[in-house]
């Protein structure tokens, strides 16, 4: 340890090659991120310079155009990667542009586009966001802002900044870039959570909780980075992986650096699992999902989950891929805890948003089985699952925004109020039933294919007990999904039944896309799934450990 300092070779200290030469940066490969960033910055300028009355239309158009343009660029880049190659890295190896990153970025952009439609929904000048978030709830000032029709159009640039962070989070190829991406993604989300129009104190409480817990988990993540850097002498994923193969940086010739690595992996794992929302780091999820404005909840439940899993997969497959035997038991435990505890707690929930939050935690557990598998099939399964789940969950939250206690009232969260909804508004209840069946993993929905893919990968990697727990947990979750369906279709409407407001074009299209994607990915998954799974002929006799899996190194 310290007593060996005399033998520290200079190479260890200079390992992260920082030169004073100007780096070559391929801006074309960065363009999807730059487009979103540019639009966000432009959005801030609009806020500063454009009169209030014209801001909303301008901001919405800009945000939608930017996500669409970034999506097109992402697809173009996906097409430009030569066959048989994983991809490339740029900006001194800090950002990876490979199939995995591009697929997840594309997914994030599509899901963000749909979330933006929900966010933009405006009924008679009333959006889901507070008229003026700085006013005290219930004050005279607040009333005057509501009467004046004030709107927080800052929401759009904030969402774009968050999306930028998410894009970078899935592509970050060293720990420092990943940390920056984590913060760029999280800070706007903390703010957005506190902007709800109704039940504002509740929303602010959610924002503060999310912020404090998020800051706490960032600290864990950073500490983990410091320890791994101490072990490997670099924050770059490829260098970390090489260092693990070599038994640590040359500082640790006798392998004495292993504790540093293991504690580092655990702490980085805590930071990432918090973002994913796996038990025991899931406690923020129900509170934040419930308190945040529902369109923002939809954004978090879909895009943020994709981004967080993208980062988790990349870190554990590439940087820590060589020490898979060390981290597998840890993730194994977390996955089992997540699937069991969240499913059991979800059964007791009485609020639809909390229930969907716990359902999101359970799904995170299912996806973790794919991380545990640590195989190309696991990666493909997780990516498909993420895309399928994203579409379904946005649709489900879109429906939540439509069911109100009364006309012009707040959302009817209480599940008891949803009784008999299938008779009064069959189309809406039918769509929700489809989403719930997809969550439960019933065949002919995308949820079934996703679950099948990850469980199959986990089986192939020898994690059979995990799959057994997963299937049992699925059965438990199916119980409460089906209970809601029964409640909606087979019970008498409650006396104080909710009012289903007419879906505007924006919310309506979000639900329609959700229904279509849930159905299509369930019936015709092969066009997507086949592209994700590497062809078996290419890596025939590979061991089921992350090797040739689509990540660039």
């Amino acid at each position, binding site marked *: 340890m310290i007593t060996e300092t005399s033998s520290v070779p200079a190479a260890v200290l200079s390992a992260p090659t920082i030169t004073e030469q*100007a780096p070559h940066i391929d801006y074309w490969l960065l363009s999807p991120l730059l487009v979103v960033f540019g639009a966000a910055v432009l959005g801030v300028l609009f*806020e500063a310079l454009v009169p209030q009355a014209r801001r909303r239309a301008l901001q919405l158009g800009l945000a939608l155009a930017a996500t669409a343009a970034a999506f097109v660029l992402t697809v173009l880049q996906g097409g430009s990667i030569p066959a048989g190659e994983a991809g490339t890295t740029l900006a001194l190896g800090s950002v990876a542009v490979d199939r995995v990153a591009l697929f997840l970025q594309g997914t994030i952009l599509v899901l963000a586009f749909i979330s933006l439609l929900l966010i933009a929904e405006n009924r008679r000048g009333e959006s889901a966001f507070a008229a003026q978030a700085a006013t005290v709830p219930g004050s005279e000032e607040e009333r005057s802002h509501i009467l004046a029709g004030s709107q927080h159009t800052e929401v759009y640039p904030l969402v774009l900044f968050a999306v930028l962070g998410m894009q970078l989070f899935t592509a970050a190829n060293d720990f420092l870039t990943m940390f920056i991406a984590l913060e760029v993604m999280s800070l706007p989300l903390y703010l957005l959570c506190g902007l709800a129009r109704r039940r504002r104190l509740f929303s602010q409480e959610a924002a503060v909780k999310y912020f404090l817990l998020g800051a706490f988990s960032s600290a864990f993540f950073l500490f983990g980075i410091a320890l791994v850097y101490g072990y490997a002498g670099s924050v770059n994923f490829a260098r970390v992986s090489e260092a693990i193969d070599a038994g640590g940086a040359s500082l640790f010739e006798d392998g004495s650096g292993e504790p540093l690595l293991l504690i580092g992996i655990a702490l980085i794992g805590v930071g990432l699992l918090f973002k994913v929302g796996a038990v025991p780091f899931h406690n923020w999820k129900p509170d934040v999902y419930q308190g945040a404005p529902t369109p923002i909840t939809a954004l978090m439940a879909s895009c943020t989950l994709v981004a967080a899993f993208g980062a988790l997969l990349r870190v554990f497959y590439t940087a820590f891929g060589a020490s898979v035997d060390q981290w597998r038991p840890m993730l194994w435990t977390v996955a089992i805890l997540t699937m069991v505890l969240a499913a059991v707690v979800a059964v007791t929930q009485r609020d639809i948003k909390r229930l969907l939050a716990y359902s999101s935690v359970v799904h995170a557990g299912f996806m973790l089985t794919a991380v545990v598998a640590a195989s190309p099939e696991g990666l493909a399964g997780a990516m498909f699952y993420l895309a399928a789940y994203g579409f379904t969950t946005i649709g489900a939250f879109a429906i939540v925004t439509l069911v109100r206690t009364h006309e012009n009232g707040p959302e009817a969260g209480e599940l008891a109020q949803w009784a008999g909804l299938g008779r009064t508004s069959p189309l809406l209840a039918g769509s929700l039933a489809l989403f719930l069946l997809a969550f439960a993993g019933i065949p002919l929905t995308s949820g079934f294919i996703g679950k099948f893919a990850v469980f199959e990968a986990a089986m192939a990697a020898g994690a059979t007990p995990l799959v057994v727990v997963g299937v049992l947990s699925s059965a438990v979750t199916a119980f409460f999904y089906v209970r809601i369906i029964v409640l909606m279709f087979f019970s008498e409407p409650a006396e104080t039944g909710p009012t289903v407001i007419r879906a505007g074009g924006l919310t309506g299209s979000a639900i329609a896309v959700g229904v279509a994607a849930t159905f299509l990915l369930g019936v015709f998954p092969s066009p997507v799934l086949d592209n994700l799974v590497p062809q078996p002929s290419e890596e025939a006799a590979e061991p089921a450990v992350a090797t040739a899996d689509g990540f660039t190194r």
Partner: protein
Amino acid sequence: MELYAPVLVLGAIGAAFVVVSMVVGSIAGPKRYNRAKLQAYECGIEPTPQPAGGGRFTIKYYLTAMLFIVFDIEIIFLYPWAVHFDELGLFGLIAMVLFLVNVSIAYAYEWRRGGLEWE
């Protein structure tokens, strides 16, 4: 263990310094209180008694603090660039100008939205 001995000794000295100076101060120091001395050691607004309505701090302080952070971040990145200005060349210059433009957009936003008006 001997590795940690200096750390522990330093910690002990630090704790002893706090305890000794506070005890000596409370015994030997003269106590002549006046209004200013009895106030909490704070700058800005009076922390006590809490104003009516839950004691909200006026938002102006936060705006000023955020403005400070904008320039603080700026200087953090400007300093290393200034040190290696010549080696970084044109690339560094362009990157820095772009960075400054982005920083000043945050500043422009605060200015246009009235964040700089104190009253």
